[in-house]
C-alpha cells in the first residue's frame, strides 16, 4: 500500500509497482489538473510539488513517494478564489490552449521559493546573487514547454505575481 498526502488530504492506495505519481493522481485520485504531455520529463505539464520541491510526476514511481506530501494545481486556489499566480496568468493571458498551464503554475510556484532560498541558475551572473529578471525566469522555466508559444506572456504573468507577492 502507498500512502500519499495530496493537497493536505491523506490517501492510501493499492497500486501496480509501475504506477507513476502522475497516473496515481489522475487515474486513482481523479485529480486531473496535472497533465500528461510527453510522459518522459521533457514537457513539464505534469509538474507537481513533492515535499515542496518541483518534480516531473511522470518520472516518479508512486511507490517511491510513500508518506510524501504532494501539492497539485488543485491545491493552490479555487475557481472562486485564484491565488496570485493563477490570477496573473488570467490577467496576462499567459496561455492559449491551457494544457501546459497547471505545470507552468506549479513550476513558477517553486521558482519563487528557489529564488527566495538564493539558488542560482545557469544564467546568474553571480552564483551568490539570484534575481528575478526576465532572463532568469526564462531559464528557470525551461523545463515547461508551451506549444502555443505563450512564453512572453507566461514570463510577464510570473513577474507580475512576483511583484504582487513582494
Amino acid at each position, binding site marked *: 500500500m502507498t500512502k500519499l498526502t495530496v493537497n493536505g488530504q491523506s490517501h492510501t492506495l493499492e497500486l*501496480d*509497482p*509501475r504506477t*507513476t505519481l502522475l497516473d496515481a493522481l489522475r487515474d486513482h485520485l481523479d485529480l486531473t489538473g496535472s497533465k500528461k504531455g510527453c*510522459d*518522459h*520529463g521533457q514537457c*513539464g505539464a505534469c*509538474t507537481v510539488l513533492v515535499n515542496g*520541491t*518541483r*518534480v*516531473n510526476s*511522470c*518520472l*516518479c*514511481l508512486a*511507490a*517511491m513517494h510513500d508518506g510524501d506530501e504532494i501539492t497539485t494545481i488543485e491545491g493552490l486556489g479555487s475557481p472562486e478564489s485564484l491565488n496570485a499566480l493563477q490570477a496573473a496568468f488570467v490577467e496576462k493571458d499567459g496561455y492559449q490552449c491551457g494544457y501546459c498551464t497547471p505545470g507552468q503554475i506549479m*513550476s513558477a510556484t*517553486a*521558482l519563487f521559493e*528557489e529564488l527566495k*532560498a*538564493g*539558488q*542560482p*541558475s*545557469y544564467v*546568474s*551572473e553571480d*552564483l*551568490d546573487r539570484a534575481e528575478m529578471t526576465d532572463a532568469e525566469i*526564462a*531559464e*528557470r522555466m*525551461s*523545463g*515547461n514547454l508551451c506549444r502555443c508559444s505563450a512564453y512572453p506572456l507566461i514570463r510577464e504573468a510570473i513577474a507580475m505575481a512576483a511583484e504582487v507577492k513582494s
Partner: protein
Amino acid sequence: MRPFEYERAGSLADASGMMGDAASIIAGGTNLMDLMKIQVMTPSRVIDISRLPDMDRIETHGDGLRIGALVTNTALATDPRIRAGWPVLSRAILAGASAQIRNKATTGGNLLQRTRCPYFYDTAMNCNKRVPGTGCSAKGGSGRMLALFGTSEDCLAAHPSDMAVGLAALGAEVEIRAPSGDLRTLPVTQLYALPGNRPDIETHLNEGEIITAVILPAPRAGTQQTYRKVRDRASYAFALVSVAAVVAMDGDTIAEASLAFGGVAPRPWTDASVNAVLAGAKAENATFERAAAQLVPDAAPHEETDFKRPLLRRTLIATLREATGLAGRVDTARTASAGGMQ
C-alpha cells in the same frame, strides 16, 4: 513498462544482495523511468535506494568534500561550499536538464545515466549498446549528437552528463562499495569504459558494486573556473560540445590549466597534452589556438559529426578567453584554507 518487482533496500548491503542481471538500482529515476517506459531497459526487479540514510549529505573529507551519491543535482549545485570553492561544478550542473529534473536526479545517477544517442533510444534501430552484436544504426544515420573521441567500429555514442565534465576538470574521484563492504576509489574519468567491441559495458563497476560518493579534492583558491556549453537551444538540451576549465593565472601567464570536454566522447574527455600546452604559456589567442590544434582530431568518426571539430576549437578558445580573464565573465574559487593549484 514491463512488469517488475519493486523492492526498497534497507541498507547498502541489502541493495548489493538484491542486485543481479535483471535488476536495476533506482534513486532519482529520471533516466531509468524514461528508458523503462520505452522498454530500452526492462529490469524485472527495481531496487529503490532513495531512502538509504546519510547518503544525501555533503561532508568535509580531508581538505575537500565527500558528496553522498544520493545528493540531488540541485542540492549539489546550490550548496554554498560548492559555489565558493568549486564553482565550475555548480555551473556545469546548472547547465544541465531542467529545475524539475535536477531536483530529482542524484549525483550517482547522473554519472551512470545512459547515452542520448537516438539509435540507442529507438528499439526499431540496431544498437550494439542496447543489444550487443546487432550493429550500429548511427553509422548510416544522423551524426549530430555523436562523439568525436573514444569511439569504436561498434559504437559512436557520447556520454551526455554536464556534471561529470565539471568533476573531471576538478580531478574528482568516485567512491565505490563492493558487495563485501570494501570501498575503492577511481578518478571520475576512469569510471567509464570506452566502447571497444563491447559498448554495452559502460563502466568499470564490478558485479554488485554501488557508487556511494564523489570525492572532491581541496579547493584551488584563486583559480578561475568556467563551464561553457553549446547546444541546439538556449536551455534544457544536451551539449553538442562543452568545455570545463579550471585555470590558475600568474599575471598574464597561465600557471596551470585543467580542462575537460563534454558531448564529444563516451566519457568526460580529458587530454593532459592540451593542459601541457597551456601551462606556462601567455594567455593570448595564439596560445589558445595551439591548445585547440593539440585537442581537435583531424577527422570525425561520422561525416555529420564533423561540424563538432570547428565547434570544439572555437568553444575551447572562447572558454579560455573567459577563464583567463580576456573576455566575458568568470567565477573565481574562494577558500581560506588553500592557495594555488594542488
